[in-house]
C-alpha cells in the first residue's frame, strides 16, 4: 500500500496530518483506558462496603474488560471515520491550492532550458558590459593622450605664430616675398655691378 506522506500538508502545518491524528488517537485511547480503570477502582472500593454482595474483583475485572472491549471497537470505528473526514476536509491541501511560499512557481514556471537560457543571457550581458567598460577605459585613455598631443601641437603652432609676430614686428610681414624681393634686388645689383665693372674695364 503506497503511503501518502501528505508532504505538502506537512510543509504547511509543520507536522504530518497522520502524526497529528496518531497523537490524538493515542491520547484518546489512553483516556479511555484510564477512565475504565478509575471506574473499576471506584466500583471495587464501593464493593468493600458490601461484603455479602458476593461479587468478586475478578468478576468486576471481567465486566470492565467486556465494556472496554465494546467501547474500544466502537472507538476504533468512530475514530477511523473521524480521521478520514479530518484528513480529507481539514488537514489537507486541495490539489488546486498552492502555498504562498510556492507562488513563484505559478508566476515563473521556468523549464530547465529556459532557466539556462536566462542565465546564459545574463552571462553574455556581463561579458558585453565588461567589454564596453574596457572600451570606455581605452577611449578615455586616448582622450587624455589627445589632450597632451593637442597641447603640444598647439604649442608648436604658437611657436610659429611667435616667429611670424617677430617678423611682423620688424617690418617683414612676409618673409618669402622679402627674400624673393631681396634676391631679385641683389641679382639686379649684381647685374648693375657687372655693368659697372665692364664699363670700368673699358675705361
Amino acid at each position, binding site marked *: 500500500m503506497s503511503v501518502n*506522506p*501528505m*508532504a505538502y500538508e506537512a*510543509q504547511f502545518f*509543520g507536522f*504530518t496530518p497522520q*502524526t497529528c491524528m496518531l497523537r490524538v488517537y493515542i491520547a484518546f485511547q489512553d483516556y479511555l483506558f484510564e477512565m475504565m480503570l478509575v471506574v473499576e477502582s471506584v466500583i471495587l472500593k464501593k464493593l468493600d462496603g458490601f461484603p455479602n454482595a458476593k461479587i468478586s474483583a475478578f468478576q468486576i475485572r471481567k465486566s470492565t474488560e467486556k465494556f472496554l472491549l465494546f467501547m474500544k471497537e466502537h472507538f476504533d470505528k468512530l475514530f477511523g471515520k473521524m480521521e478520514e473526514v479530518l484528513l480529507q476536509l481539514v488537514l489537507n491541501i486541495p490539489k488546486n491550492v498552492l502555498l504562498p*511560499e510556492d507562488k513563484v512557481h505559478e508566476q515563473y514556471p521556468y523549464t530547465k532550458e529556459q532557466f539556462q537560457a536566462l542565465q546564459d543571457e545574463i552571462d553574455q550581458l*556581463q561579458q558585453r558590459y565588461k567589454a564596453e567598460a574596457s572600451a570606455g577605459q581605452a577611449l578615455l585613455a586616448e582622450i587624455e593622450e589627445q589632450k597632451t598631443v593637442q597641447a603640444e601641437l598647439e604649442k608648436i603652432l604658437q611657436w610659429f605664430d611667435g616667429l611670424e609676430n617677430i617678423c611682423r614686428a620688424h617690418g617683414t610681414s612676409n618673409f618669402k616675398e622679402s627674400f624673393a624681393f631681396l634676391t631679385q634686388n641683389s641679382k639686379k645689383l649684381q647685374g648693375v655691378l657687372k655693368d659697372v665693372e665692364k664699363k670700368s674695364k673699358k675705361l
Partner: protein
Amino acid sequence: FDELIVETTTKRKQWPKKILMHAIQTMKGEQE
C-alpha cells in the same frame, strides 16, 4: 519516516528564501 517528511518539507518551506538571500547578495555584489 515522519521526522524525515517534516524535516524535508521544512527545508522546502525555508531554504528557497535562504538561498535567495545569498543569490541576491551575489547579484548586488556583481552590480556594485
